[in-house]
């Protein structure tokens, strides 16, 4: 539940669309960015920030907030877009994205940006930090939750499985992790770089409450967040495996040959905005 009114009766569809739009505008500033990932994860971020999480836009360090950890720091462009939409970062600041002295560096870092809870960049850190935060919140008898977004490629890191094992061992039912399965990492499709499947079975075997959904189906994403939150008191951490489509919402990017870092030509940023604008939800 949001605690500050920032536009009443705005649909999640529209929030997700706005997040995509902010992200494309930031990408245009630098002529680059992990835009395909930002587009694929926009529905998840919209649901987190405008349906699931408790926070105060004017007080990003509020003690009772739900924490959001961005483990995949290269998705910073997506989280900045969500933080702008949430009113934590002023909208006009997106023009500074990735520039010298900006609070919005290309890779997310805790010390730079309000609302950025950890320093990513080096992949596979987020879940370990989340375990500590969850232990700390339980120790403080806080009912705040820790949401942690990470990418499928991070599951190659052994440390991620250390954290997965320990979250179950410590019964961290205040942890909701979301893994963005877009099946794309630096050297190619995750299925060829390092096979992860059957991921749901693996995570269940590790003692988690696991849901697998289409991460671009807002109704499904919302239901998954609700079910994960309902796990509070069940002594199990929750994992949402979200299968997503890179470039979602901009058809010519959806269709582009998949790559970890999708090249967008300078004239294409406007085309991407136009394509998005044609699909503006009410």
């Amino acid at each position, binding site marked *: 539940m949001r605690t500050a009114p920032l536009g009443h009766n705005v649909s999640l569809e529209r929030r997700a669309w706005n997040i995509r739009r902010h992200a494309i505008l930031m990408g245009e500033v630098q002529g680059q960015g992990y835009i395909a990932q930002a587009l694929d994860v926009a529905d998840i971020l919209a649901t987190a920030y405008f349906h699931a999480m408790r926070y105060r836009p004017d007080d990003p360090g509020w003690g009772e907030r739900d924490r959001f950890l961005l483990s995949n720091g290269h998705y910073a462009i997506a989280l900045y877009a969500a933080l702008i939409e949430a009113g934590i970062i002023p909208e006009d600041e997106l023009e500074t994205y990735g520039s010298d002295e900006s609070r919005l560096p290309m890779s997310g*870092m805790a010390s730079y940006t309000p609302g950025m809870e950890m320093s990513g960049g080096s992949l596979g850190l987020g879940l370990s*930090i989340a375990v500590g935060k969850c232990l700390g919140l339980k120790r403080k008898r806080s009912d705040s939750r820790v949401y942690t977004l990470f990418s499928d490629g991070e599951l190659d890191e052994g440390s991620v499985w250390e954290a997965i094992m320990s979250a179950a061992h410590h019964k961290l039912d205040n942890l909701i992790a979301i893994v963005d399965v877009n099946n794309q990492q630096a050297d190619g499709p995750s299925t060829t770089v390092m096979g992860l499947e059957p991921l749901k079975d693996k995570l269940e075997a590790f003692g988690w409450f696991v849901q697998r959904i289409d991460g671009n189906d807002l109704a499904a994403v919302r239901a998954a967040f609700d079910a994960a939150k309902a796990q509070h008191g069940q002594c199990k951490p929750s994992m949402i495996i979200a299968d997503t489509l890179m470039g979602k919402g901009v058809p010519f990017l959806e269709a582009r040959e998949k790559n970890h870092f999708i090249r967008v030509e300078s004239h294409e940023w406007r085309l991407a905005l136009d394509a998005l604008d044609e699909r503006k939800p009410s």
Partner: protein
Amino acid sequence: MKPAAPKTDAGKPRLTTSAMIASIAGEGQRTKPAPFGHALVELAKEDGSILGMTADLGKYTDLHIFAQAFPDRYYQMGMAEQLLFGAASGLAAEGFTPIATTYAVFASRRAYDFIHQTIAEEDRNVKIACALPGLTSGYGPSHQATEDLALFRAMPNMVVIDPCDAHEIEQVVPAMVRHKGPVYMRLLRGQVPLVLDEYGYSFELGKAKLLRDGYEVLFISSGIMTMRALEAAKALVSDRIDAGVLHVPTIKPLDAATILACCAKPGRLVVVAENHTVNGGLGEAVAGLLMRKGVHPAFRMIGLPDEFLAAGALPTLHDRYGISTEALCARVKGWLK
């Protein structure tokens, strides 16, 4: 045939086992048990933010003392050092003061990126206390943390402390908790030698202290090498060599003013002695400082060689690699000839 064990002065056979854990206390030396664990318990009685965490080495880092006193403030993270330090960062971000322990090799080598990114870069208030620093295990390179100081010195935001004995460890524990930010401390555990109480010494973060003055030689040392340097200085008296000892327990930030003042005294041989590879530790830190400031005494370094060290008993290895008291005396006498 098994080689005969070398005899000690007292006539007893000297240990020759390449054990993982062996006391560094000399024959008949005064010791205190588990000073780190007991000091932490005392401090935690006053400071409710303190938590203990380990990666399956509670018993071997004296953290079990804390675990017994405060079982609900103790987190066993399993044999998973990356998780240990990432989770410590998370607990610190929630306002706690985690004291995370493991062996120095695992913190410095296995979990370096986790400490770098989640603790140092985020400037989290985590205290990292690591046993088996330098050459204090006979088990071989897997457990000999000969490069931990170089690695943590190179990390921004990190304070690095190398205490000498039980007396100092008892004072380092509250001092490092008073300091807000990441700290790496080398930990001596088990029966820990007691030396510095006789020198009226007190630890201050960032301060080097002259324990003994001497006009011909000045040892600059940290950790157990201060104990060795003090013994060497005593022994060198019989050779009519007057040696002083400057103890530098805080490797970073270095007490530049005191080191420069002591090294500027004319006519004195400066010998840095460290339980660490000669690459990137106290020796090179002091050398760099002196060069930058234009202070040029006669200068020598005693430290571990740039190689993978052998397995063996600690006394054997300390002799072989030149960090025993006898080796210190021999080197100094050779240099003064």
